[in-house]
């Protein structure tokens, strides 16, 4: 394998230099400028009647080989098209007028591009420059608030991939994340891409556009096009440094308040008050202040690119170092990208893209934020003698720990290396017919290295060092290393036929694709590994005795896909549009007749504004009505669901004769067949522009039903299976909604131009029906809710709704509690509504208490340019969503409370009818109930950026084209009523947890931070 890779790279490097030899010397040079005389980058310059073309560089300059009597065609998104005859000149200056519309915008669709006006589905484009403007480390996180109907949930953890949902969630057990297609190669995650390398991101939102990606398209498709070189060789540098701070830090009870609460809790449980004098503890330790910090970020990105009509190249390197706001947590990433296209001959173009990425992180200990939330403020970080603060030294039990000690001893590093890319060849047989073949893939390697050092229990080993405390100690080192390999490839061949006959225009695409995805993970573990030198971290240095053996485990996955697809685009008079496609996908995940799935689509469009009867109206500059329907699939479900497997769990190993006797048996039944989750979606849209093309609008209504979603089939426990249920194609799930995008672009006077774009998505999620009937699935972070399940998914309701008791007050007296029908209740406990009025409050009285599926997502994005200044202001938010604040109720002993709880708690008759007593984690108070569910709506100033471009007169003196400096603030202001750090809570991501059923539960999530950056762009 290694040899193959070496060869591949030799080949790629050769290609890079190859194009230089092909440069020609008969050229026409020039500049493309706008009405203000500023150069326009990225304008396509082509020789009319040929396929010779180039693009302008960032200064607007171009250079092209053209006949003396030829005609040059200049075209660019937002500027329209202009033709200029060369007439023997060697220098040509073209002036393009900016248009207040994006009609000529070209969007990327599956296996090709299309003019936006020809598109019959719902496709949204975000430009690379808008992505690069945000200090986001992951390109997906930069999409937040940019596109109607696309909900991004960011995590504060450095290097973490955000959660993305396009038009809601249509699956339970399948993956809910979209397919990413980067330059034709398919991925589940694009965290390896440097945002600075992205030319554009196009999001296919409706089923008809997605259907060409068949089996992987059900959650939407995100098409990423990376930058290709153009024009004169240009070097661009973008760098920033910044600082991150936690936002909306939750204020916790101080030591005095804490001791008071713990006293109340104990008294409420019938025990004695453990703290004699709460006030004597003063303020105590603010654990969040201890573990959080101001964190620094540094980002550098350099790219060199250029090209002629015969060849292009682009090379970039990026470096990012991001500290986490948690002490000791950081993430760094190096990216390198190499791209070149070469027009080898008139009919043959070859090209490649290669992206290399390496990242490293010092990880945050799992659950640390929960530990910081609950840690007792009466405990100091360290005592005066330098030993660690120990909860056991206080009458508070062992449920809490010293988070500073946990951070100090935690040692886990992750590294990932990835090479991705593709090579392609494109043959143009004639002006109508072309063939493209591409081979791409991913070669990834990951390592997680965990080391648990020794830190002794000072009580048991008073003379051995280093020491922990009597709760957190470890007598034996443990080294655990996990290596994972990803080996994916995709081959695609497409044939495109393009023909225009009078008013009829056809474009026909047929293609074939094969893919293979292989994953393998190996984990080794050893105890008593020394910890003296860097070279000590080897499994082989473990003690490897009979009682402490070195162990190795592994797991893997292999999936293959084979596909055929075709599409026809037809337009008549550029007015009547038709798109139809069909894809057939076969997957190794399914068997027999269910192996192949077929995914058709059809879309129609009517450009009303081009009709004759519209000639006399003055309102619409452009108006298009479109409608589409398509089928998509979701194959991202567990493999082998319908294969009965032998159960070899270690649990089945017996002890016979004092020796281990490995066991195996059959502990499952399987559903008769499992097939694709099939989605069928309809989209009706209207788009256009008015007011001299300054106001653009796009409205969409969509209705998408996942048919035969994998759903639990409850099985009788008396079957004795190892699982609670089996899975089958059981449910229909619908996402229906409405999207609005409005754009306004204008100028005031000569110097001020601005644009304002707003978008709103409204989605309603519903499980329509389940074949096996009312068949609720209870989930929702048992670990976060003290063992009770907080969500329910059931036919007729949305996925993963919060489910529990409705609180209608607090029992003010024991007598009131005793007569309530809630067994064991006391004064200060929640009073739950007896929904069925049977005088007993029990499980049957639980109701829907909240919905983690956002109903509204919205964004407002603005750009202002005044002379040399530019200003960006972006707002973003969600509404109609709930968050389950599990931190408030997950208690096993003497955990801390928030200041808000202290201030509002019940502590005697009449003190509160909303907040319970300090015994909120006890009796039946901890059970999922409406008090834990809070409004998760928020509005945030996502991004503010002010830039200043230095005068040309100055920069040219330095031999530079352009210098721009900017200051930026991200997440600076957040508005919400939620009492946790942030209402932006995604799904629980613990392995084995099903995301859509465990969404919106906040159990010590990594808080978001506000980021303040100062940066510079330089190009020459």
């Amino acid at each position, binding site marked *: 394998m290694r040899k193959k890779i070496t060869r591949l790279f030799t080949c790629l490097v050769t290609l890079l230099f190859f194009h230089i030899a092909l440069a020609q010397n008969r050229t026409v040079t020039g500049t493309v400028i706008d009405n203000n005389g500023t150069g326009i980058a990225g304008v396509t310059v082509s020789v009319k009647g040929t396929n010779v073309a180039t693009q302008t560089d960032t200064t607007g300059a171009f250079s092209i080989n053209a006949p003396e009597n030829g005609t040059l065609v200049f075209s660019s998104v937002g500027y329209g098209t202009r033709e200029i005859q060369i007439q023997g000149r060697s220098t040509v200056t073209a002036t393009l007028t900016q248009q207040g519309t994006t009609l000529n915008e070209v969007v990327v669709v599956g296996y090709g591009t299309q003019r936006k006006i020809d598109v019959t589905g719902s496709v949204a484009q975000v430009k690379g420059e808008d992505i690069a403007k945000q200090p986001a480390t992951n390109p997906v996180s930069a999409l937040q608030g940019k596109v109607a109907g696309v909900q991004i949930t960011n995590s504060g953890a450095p290097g973490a991939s955000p959660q993305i949902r396009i038009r809601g969630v249509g699956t339970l057990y399948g993956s809910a994340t979209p397919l990413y297609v980067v330059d034709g190669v398919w991925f589940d995650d694009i965290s390896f891409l440097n945002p600075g390398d992205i030319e554009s991101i196009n999001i296919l939102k409706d089923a008809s556009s997605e259907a060409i990606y068949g089996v992987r398209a059900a959650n939407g498709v995100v098409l990423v096009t990376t930058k290709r070189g153009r024009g004169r060789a240009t070097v661009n540098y973008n760098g920033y440094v910044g600082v991150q701070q936690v936002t909306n830090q939750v204020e916790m009870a101080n030591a005095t308040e804490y001791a008071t609460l713990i006293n109340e809790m104990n008294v409420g*449980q019938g025990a004695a008050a453990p703290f004699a004098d709460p006030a004597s503890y003063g303020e105590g330790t603010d654990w969040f202040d201890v573990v959080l910090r101001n964190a620094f970020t540094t980002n550098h990105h350099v790219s060199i690119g250029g090209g002629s009509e015969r060849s292009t190249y682009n090379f970039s390197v990026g470096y990012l170092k991001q500290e986490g706001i948690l002490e000791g947590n950081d993430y760094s990433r190096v990216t390198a990208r190499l791209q070149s296209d070469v027009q080898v001959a*008139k*009919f043959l173009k070859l090209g490649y893209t290669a992206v290399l990425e390496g990242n490293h992180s010092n990880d945050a200990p799992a659950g640390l934020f929960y530990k910081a939330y609950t840690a007792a403020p009466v405990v100091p970080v360290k005592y005066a003698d330098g030993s660690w603060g120990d909860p056991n030294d206080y009458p508070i039990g062992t449920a809490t720990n010293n988070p500073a000690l946990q951070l100090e001893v935690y040692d886990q590093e992750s590294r990932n290396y990835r090479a991705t890319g593709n090579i392609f*060849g494109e043959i143009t047989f004639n002006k109508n017919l072309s*063939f493209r*073949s591409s*081979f791409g893939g991913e070669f990834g390697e990951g390592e997680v290295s965990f080391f648990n050092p020794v830190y002794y229990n000072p*009580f048991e080993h008073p003379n051995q060092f280093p020491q922990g405390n009597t709760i957190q100690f470890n007598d034996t080192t443990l080294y655990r290393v996990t290596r994972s390999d990803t080996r994916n490839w995709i*081959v695609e*061949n497409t044939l495109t036929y393009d023909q225009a006959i009078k008013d009829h225009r056809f474009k026909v695409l047929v293609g*074939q694709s094969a893919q293979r995805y292989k994953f393998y993970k190996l984990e080794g573990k050893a105890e008593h590994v020394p910890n003296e030198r860097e070279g000590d971290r080897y499994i082989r240095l473990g003690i490897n005795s009979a*009682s*402490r*053996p070195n*162990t190795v485990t592994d*797991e893997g*996955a*292999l*999936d293959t896909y084979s596909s055929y697809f075709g599409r026809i685009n037809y337009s008549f008079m550029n007015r009547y549009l038709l798109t139809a496609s069909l894809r057939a996908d076969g*997957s*190794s995940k399914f068997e027999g007749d269910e192996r192949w799935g077929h995914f058709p689509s059809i879309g129609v469009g009517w450009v009303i504004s081009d009709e004759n009867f519209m000639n006399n109206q003055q309102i619409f500059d452009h108006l298009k009505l479109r409608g589409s329907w398509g089928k998509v699939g979701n194959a991202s479900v567990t*493999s*082998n669901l319908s*294969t009965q*497997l*032998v*159960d*070899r*769990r270690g*649990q089945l*190993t*017996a*002890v*016979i*004769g*004092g*020796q*281990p006797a*490995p*066991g*195996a*048996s*059959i*502990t499952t039944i399987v559903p008769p067949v499992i097939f694709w989750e099939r989605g069928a979606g309809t989209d009706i849209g209207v788009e256009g522009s008015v007011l001299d093309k300054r106001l653009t609008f796009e409205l969409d209504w969509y209705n998408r039903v996942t048919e035969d979603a994998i759903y639990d089939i409850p*099985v*009788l*426990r*008396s*079957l*004795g*299976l*190892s699982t609670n249920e089996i899975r089958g194609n059981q449910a229909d799930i619908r996402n229906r909604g409405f999207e609005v995008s409005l754009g306004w672009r204008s100028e005031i006077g000569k110097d001020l131009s601005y644009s304002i774009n707003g978008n709103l998505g409204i989605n309603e999620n519903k499980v329509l029906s389940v074949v096996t009937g009312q068949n609720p699935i209870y989930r929702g972070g048992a670990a976060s809710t003290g063992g009770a399940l907080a969500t329910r998914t059931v036919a007729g309701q949305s996925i993963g709704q919060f489910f529990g008791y409705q609180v209608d007050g607090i029992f003010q007296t024991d007598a009131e509690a005793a007569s309530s029908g809630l*067994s*064991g209740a006391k004064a200060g406990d929640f009073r739950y509504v007896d929904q069925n009025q049977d005088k007993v409050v*029990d499980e*049957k009285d639980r109701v829907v208490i909240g919905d983690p599926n956002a109903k509204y997502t919205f964004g407002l994005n603005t750009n202002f340019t005044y002379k040399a200044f530019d200003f960006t202001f972006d707002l973003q938010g969600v509404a109609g969503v709930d968050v389950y604040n599990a931190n408030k109720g997950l208690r096993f*002993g003497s955990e801390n409370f928030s200041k808000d709880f202290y201030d509002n708690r019940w502590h005697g008759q009449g003190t509160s009818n909303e907040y319970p007593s300090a015994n909120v*984690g*006890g*009796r039946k108070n901890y059970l999922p109930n409406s008090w834990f569910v809070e409004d998760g709506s928020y509005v945030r100033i996502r991004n503010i950026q002010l830039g200043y471009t230095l005068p040309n007169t100055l920069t040219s003196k330095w031999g530079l084209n352009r210098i721009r400096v900017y200051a930026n603030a991200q997440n600076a202001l957040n508005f919400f009523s939620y009492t946790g750090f942030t209402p932006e809570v995604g799904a629980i991501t613990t392995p084995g947890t099903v995301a859509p059923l465990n969404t919106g539960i906040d159990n010590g999530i990594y808080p978001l931070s506000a980021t303040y950056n100062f940066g510079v762009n330089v190009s020459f």
Partner: protein
Amino acid sequence: MSLINRSTYLTKVAAGSLVLLLLTQSACKKDFLEVDPQGQTPSEQFWITQEDATRAVNAIYGNLNDWELVAFAPIAIESLGSDETEKGSSPGDAAFLNDYDNFTVSAAQGQIQDFWIGQYRSINLANQVLDNVPGITMDENLKTRYLAEAKFVRAYNYFRLVRAFGDVPLRLTVPKATEEFNIPRTPKAEVWAAIEKDLTDAAAVLPVSYGPADIGRATKGAALALHAKVAMYQTRENAGRWQDVLNYTNQVIGLGVYSLFPDFEKLFRIQNENNQESVFEIQSAVIPTITDASNSQYSQVQGVRGVSWGGWGFNVPTIELVNAFDAADPRKDATIIFRGETTPEGDAIPPTGDNPRYNQKSYVPSSQHKPGFSEGAEQNIRVIRYAEVLLMNAEAANEQGDATKARQSLNAVRARVGLPAVTTSDKNALRLAIWNERRVELAMEFDRYFDVIRQGRGAEVFGAKGWKAGKNEVWPIPQNEIDISAGVLTQNPGY
């Protein structure tokens, strides 16, 4: 570029694309989409060799110390209802367990369901063997024994089920067709009959004892002793069954391989597992290479709370149990760890803490703890001890009018701990003496609750805690199971 040149180029290109097509052709082959389960064995490749049979039988034993079979669920269903234990731990921890102590439990509560799940999982593993091993070509003697072992375990699980729930769905084969999935509750008499058939079959085949390599497997004695207990639990409906209890216990005694272990306290320590008194024990161990096989939590959940080597402190002895022991009875100290004491193995128990007492029979001294594993994960669970066989023998003899024999067996148990012999010949007095002996001899061994019900004294002994005759003889059928059955399963009266 000339036309000729161009066609040469085209040829090259055609050749090039042909290579690519060939490359993809391999992907289009039919078997490209045939991918084996990765790192997993499909069931078609099982039930073929003798080794498969061995592993499937191992699985039955391996599963016996599963959480649902030895931890919270048995504590809730088989212990807390009694007068010898209460919830323990800290007041707020797993407060739902109080509902089993107070008889306020509802059918939807988790431990009801867990207990059900645990037993039926074990039954499935036995049924898998009983269905599939007969078809395997292997050593016939071994095969016969394997089937007998499976029957013993199946009988043990059905015994626990019928005791806890009364009528339960009786599955004696692995259901194949969909209509076999959802079956109604089988009347308890039929369940008892099935249990007894399994035990009769097992006793006929199982060896009296095994060589060292097979210690832990079910023996003839285990099948007979369990059969005696099964018969004893039916004596309220049919007093004639006392003769069976007597016969089976006599047979166990007659095997001549069992005797009482001299030191009652040491009887329960790890180094004395599988001793001469052991009739059936669930084997547990720490196998460092297989952590999943090393996490029996039987000892941990009951372990002393509040010490670094300790456990969770559930299912703690009540003051009523303390008072049940004679002052001179050494079993009190051997059965109960008192707050502030130092155990015979040298563990100092803090004088303060959540609970005044803990179970000493499940206790594993700190010196024997294996870091990285559940506290006391090595502790075997004593299911049937010879002492219980003697006490059943005594009770049966007394019921059948043989006071001499009854006293002989009863006093053997008392003599081991140095207590004076019971001398009464009065049938009722002797019965009470035997019942009381069971209470103190088998204390904290998950016997007391159902034993009292079996004696017909539920209301008398537990009534003060809320136990009601006509309802609390059995627990409710899990509500979830009833829901899934769409009404095929019925609920017990009063729930």
